[in-house]
């Protein structure tokens, strides 16, 4: 669990972060979103004390972060950034091993951990292990960056626009990977992005910042259904808010017991946006739905999409 309590940062008398308070439950994926200059990176960097706070407190699992020496605190928190910052003179293996070595793990445990992480990142262990960062693609480098952040098995992971510099396809791929890794590891993740769609796809909770202040904090469904201000509504997508709401909901939650709908069935795990898209493409207002094993589970109708 991580708790922000009236966190404040001043830059030249101006408040870059102004009394921001919210609490992220342990194991949750929290996205910090907002336009450029909203203070989201500053807020993130105050958690591992790369930026000093001017007021308020951050508590991790109830402990104030200023209680530990900064170096010890940082070794307990995973950190991945957009520019990756892999050490160019170290192999992939040595890069991933950075924090375990600082914590003086035995070498065999480090080697096993490196192997485990490369497998988790779906990289070819033997081919990648001894390569230098410049021999990898941007996407691979970012995977190594995330692996390095996870190396010492921290409970908390800070990610500052980790996929910001990648092309859209690699970006989508890594998003899916990150969602999978979050599920598999149960880490608490704080994730800075300016891309609201990325936040909606990945996050359990979203903190929207504007000019250093917290504009709204809540689940994606909350923010979409009940934006607290015009700014939040606009930032969430304005006129397309409804479509984004559909993207948050699954077909399975809107089933009707009707097995007579014609055509190829869609999965009950598909989003309502996908269902709507299929209806438009097929020129129909009803779709058959199948469950995970492919058995018919019912149908979804256009009218069901509109009722929430």
């Amino acid at each position, binding site marked *: 669990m991580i708790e922000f309590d009236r966190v404040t940062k001043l830059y030249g008398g101006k408040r870059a972060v102004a009394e921001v308070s919210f609490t992220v439950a342990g194991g949750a994926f929290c996205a910090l979103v907002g336009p450029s200059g909203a203070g989201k990176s500053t807020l993130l960097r105050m958690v*591992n004390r*790369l930026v000093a706070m001017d007021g308020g407190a951050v508590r991790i699992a109830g402990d104030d972060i200023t209680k530990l020496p*900064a*170096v*010890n*605190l*940082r*070794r307990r928190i995973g*950190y991945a*950034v957009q*520019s*990756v*910052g*892999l*050490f*160019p*003179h*170290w192999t992939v293996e040595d890069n991933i091993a*950075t*924090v375990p070595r*600082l914590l003086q793990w035995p070498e065999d445990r480090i080697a096993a951990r490196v192997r485990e992480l490369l497998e988790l990142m779906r990289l070819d262990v033997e081919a990648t292990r001894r390569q*230098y960062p*410049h021999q990898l693609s941007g996407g691979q480098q970012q995977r190594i*960056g995330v692996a*390095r952040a996870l190396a010492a098995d921290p409970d908390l992971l*800070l990610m500052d626009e980790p996929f910001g510099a990648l092309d859209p396809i690699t970006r989508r791929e890594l998003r899916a990977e990150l969602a999978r890794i979050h599920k598999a590891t149960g880490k608490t993740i704080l994730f800075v992005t300016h891309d609201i769609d990325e936040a909606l796809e990945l996050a359990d909770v979203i903190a929207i910042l504007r000019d250093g202040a917290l504009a709204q904090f809540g689940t994606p469904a909350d923010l979409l259904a009940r934006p607290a201000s015009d700014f939040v509504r606009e930032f969430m997508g304005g006129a397309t808010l409804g479509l984004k709401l559909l993207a948050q909901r699954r077909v399975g939650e809107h089933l009707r017991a009707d097995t007579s709908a014609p055509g190829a069935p869609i999965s009950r795990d598909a989003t309502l946006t996908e269902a709507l898209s299929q209806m438009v493409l097929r020129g129909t207002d009803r779709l058959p739905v199948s469950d995970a094993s492919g058995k018919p589970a019912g149908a979804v109708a256009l009218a069901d999409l509109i009722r929430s």
Partner: protein
Amino acid sequence: MKREGAVTARILTDPLLWFGLAFAFFVAFMPVLAPIFARAFPSIEPPVYAGDSFVALWLFHAALVAASSLAATIIGVSAGIFATRAAGTEFRPTLEALATIGQTFPPVAVLALAVPALGYGAAPTFIALTLYGILPILKNTIAGLTSAPAAVRDAAIGMGLTPLQILRQVELPLAAPVILAGIRLSVIINIGTATIGSTVGAVTLGTPIIGGLVANKIGYVIQGAIVVGLFAIVTDLLFERIDRRLRRFARRD
């Protein structure tokens, strides 16, 4: 078989091999060339410099350059590290100015000023060469240490490396090729400059050169100059070898 051929060809076309052999030959067997020099400069007797042997001259010369370059490296690198730490940034312009003054001061003038204090011999030459060698090393140390990408430094701090660990594990290894280039330049300059030390009585490869100039014996000047020149070239090629090893992780494109 083909592979072995390629390796042999690579060794045979290696400039280090040929310059090394030429250098070793001139140092060890200069007297063998006496008939050639006798024909070229019939008035000079003996035709080959007959003071200390060229092996001895070279050993003194190399020791002087090695000692002064080591001193310049220790001072230059330490000052460069200090100037790039948070506590030292304010001293950076002063340090750079001091090193520049050291460099622009003619070595002959340093010798002239050092002799009254230290007497004749190797000591004033050592001081002059050390002062002269600091600037390129200091400048390159500062340039190298500040060139580590901001993202790399940010990640290093964010993962919990201490400032000393960042310096030793990240900044210095990344700066090593640049620092080495500074040391290389400094050593090469000092190999040439050390010859001037012979004007104040240091025994170097400059001894036949200075002696030859004073006594108008051009043959000695040529003999000394050939050995100094080859020494500088061989040393430079050796540095190139080290440099390639240091850059093994660098981009290969």
